Structure formats: C-alpha cells, structure tokens
C-alpha cells in the first residue's frame, strides 16, 4: 500500500512542531484522509500517555528494584527452584528413554527381497559380483561380496531347474568340472547365493542374476 506523505508529519503535529500553513494543510488533510486520522489518533494516545506518565514510565528505578533487561526465557529459567530443576531433569530423561524406545521399535526394517516365486523374506541384501552379464565361455567360478566371518553361503545354479548347488564359507566358489560340462553355449542360466549364520538362520539372499553363454561361432 502506498504510504501517504502527510503521515510523516504526524509526530511533528503532535509535538507542536508544525506552524502556520503546513499545520493548516496537515489538519485539512486529516479531515479528508481516514487512514491518516486513524494513525493520528493512535499516535496521539501514545504521545499523551508518554507526556502524562513519562516520569513514571522512564523513572530510574532504585538500585534494589533495578534489573538489567533479560529475555523472557532467561527470566523463566532463572526463576526455577532446585526442586523444579530436578523435575525438569527427570522429565527430560523420561522423554529421552521414550524417544529411544520408540526409535528401536520403529527402526526401519531390512529391505524386502524375493527369495523365489513363493518366498519373500526380509534381511540384508547380498551382492553378486561375477558373472553378472553374458559371458563368452563357460565360467569357472562364482564370486560375491563377503558378509564377514562365520557366514556360510549356499550357491544355487539354475537352468530351467536346479542344475547345481553347493555351500562354502568363502566368497568365491569354483564350479565343478562336471557341472561346467552341463553348461552349454547359447543357454541362459541364473544363480543365487543365500547366506546363513552359524546357527543356520538365513540372514541374506541375493537376487537371482541371469547370464547367457554366448553361442559358439
């Protein structure tokens, strides 16, 4: 909203700094400008109050009464008794306990992944490393990312059906010669690794990665 130029003269008028023609012009203006008149009335209330009660408003308080101005939150804190502080401490601790409790309760669950057509499990994911794309010749080994010590891996190789399966504690396994001979160029295969803890609990499973052995030329 555009500010009326006369509004700047309100203080001068109320403090009797306007005389003669400028004063008359200002007075005539507020007879015609409701916005300026509203501001004038409001400012007059302030100036009159300060003029009549200024001695009380701006008095020098006695030293016993005088206080440095402090923000409201500091004043509130300063007014706490030791007992109130103790209550605040206990309440804060309780809030922390509840928050941490809820955090563990609602911790994001492990990613969900498909084990096979009928099984869906939650757990760590397991990354397969080789082979993950089509290969020119029959691979000699499978390799995946280790999940650490004490983990047993079960590797499964599929054609249309389960072709071969083995277990190991390494993150790499050599494909037996007998199995390799059953893997023909031009065929598509899929392999998957599942990881088990020492007590036999399934802790991770990879996705089923497909690869093809390029047809012989």
């Amino acid at each position, binding site marked *: 909203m555009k500010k009326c130029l006369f509004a700047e003269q309100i203080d001068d008028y109320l403090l009797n700094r306007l005389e003669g023609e400028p004063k008359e012009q200002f007075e005539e203006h507020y007879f015609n400008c409701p916005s300026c008149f509203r501001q004038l009335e409001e400012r007059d209330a302030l100036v009159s109050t*300060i003029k009549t009660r200024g001695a009380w408003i701006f008095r020098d308080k006695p030293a016993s009464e005088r206080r440095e101005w402090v923000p409201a939150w500091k004043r509130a804190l300063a007014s706490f008794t030791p007992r109130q502080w103790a209550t605040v401490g206990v309440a804060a601790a309780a809030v922390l306990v509840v928050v941490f409790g809820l955090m563990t309760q609602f911790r994001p669950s492990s990613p969900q992944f498909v084990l096979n057509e009928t099984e869906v499990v939650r757990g760590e994911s397991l990354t397969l490393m080789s082979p993950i794309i089509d290969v020119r010749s029959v691979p000699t080994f499978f390799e995946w990312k280790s999940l650490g010590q004490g983990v047993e891996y079960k590797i499964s190789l599929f054609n249309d059906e389960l072709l071969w399966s083995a277990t190991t504690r390494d993150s790499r396994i050599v494909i037996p010669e007998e199995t390799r001979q059953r893997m023909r160029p031009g065929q598509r295969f899929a392999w998957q690794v599942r990881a088990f803890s020492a007590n036999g609990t399934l802790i991770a499973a990879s996705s089923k990665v497909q690869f093809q052995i390029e047809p012989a030329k």
Partner: protein
Amino acid sequence: MENRPPEIDLNDVVVKYRPVVSFKVKKSLGAQTPDWEDVVNEVITQVIEKVKKGEFRGDSSIGTYIYTITSRRIIDHIRQKTKVLRNIPEPVPLPDPCDNAESRERAQFLAQAIQQLKPKFKEVLNLYYYQELTRDEVAERLGISPRRVSERLNYAQRLLRKMIRT
C-alpha cells in the same frame, strides 16, 4: 446555470466527522478545557444546518468544508473566552488529559506496555516523545543513524500495538 448541492448523507457525516472534529477541537483548546464538547456540538450543528440550507456547494470536499467551519468556530471560541477570562485567574489544568475512566485505564495499560519494552526502544521513545529531542538529536545521543531512530520508533509502536491487542 447554478450548481445543485451534492447529495450528502448527514447521519454518515456526523458518524464519520465527530471524532475528527473532536480531535481538532481538543488539540486546539486542550482536552482540559471543560467546554470542548460544547464546541464540537456547535460545529456539528452548524455543519448540519449549512448542508440542509444547501450552503455546501461541493466546491471543496466535505472534509475541507467541515475543517473550515471547525477552525472558525475554534477561533471564535478562543476570542470569546479571552474577553471573559481577561480579568480572572487561569484555571488549573487537570493533571490527566485522559478525561474518563476508560481512557485512563487504556493509558495506564499502554504505559505498562511501554515499560515492558526492551531498553533500546524505551530509550528512543523517552528521548523523542518525552524529552522532545529531534530525530537527529536522538541519533546523535544514541550514536546511531536518524534512519535507525525512525526504525526503532516504528518497531516500538508495532510491538505496542501487538501487546495491546493480545
């Protein structure tokens, strides 16, 4: 051809201009003057009569017309009083221009609100409105720019408005 007087809603005029006329009269005569209300009533009556008689031709705005009548009536009143009061002592002004309980209460509330302001705002209100230093003098006294003085004055008023509304 003679101009026809403009259509004026007198009720509207009275409602709208009584506070403005009152303000001007109080400012000119002082709110302590006991008969300021009589002067306001005389002005309003005069305006109504003149408009009814068709004396307001619309050469100026109705606001300017009422302002002119108010100013003349105030001057007449002061002349009259000066003649009467020349030989008697000046009346003692009342200590508080807030002339009724409601305004006194409002003023007290405002005074308390000012007291609760931060020192930097209170200080600028004190120097500018109470001690009546100019903006430049306040700026010099506080070691800030005149523009900053204006900003503090405006901000203080905004805070007071907010405190009073809540």
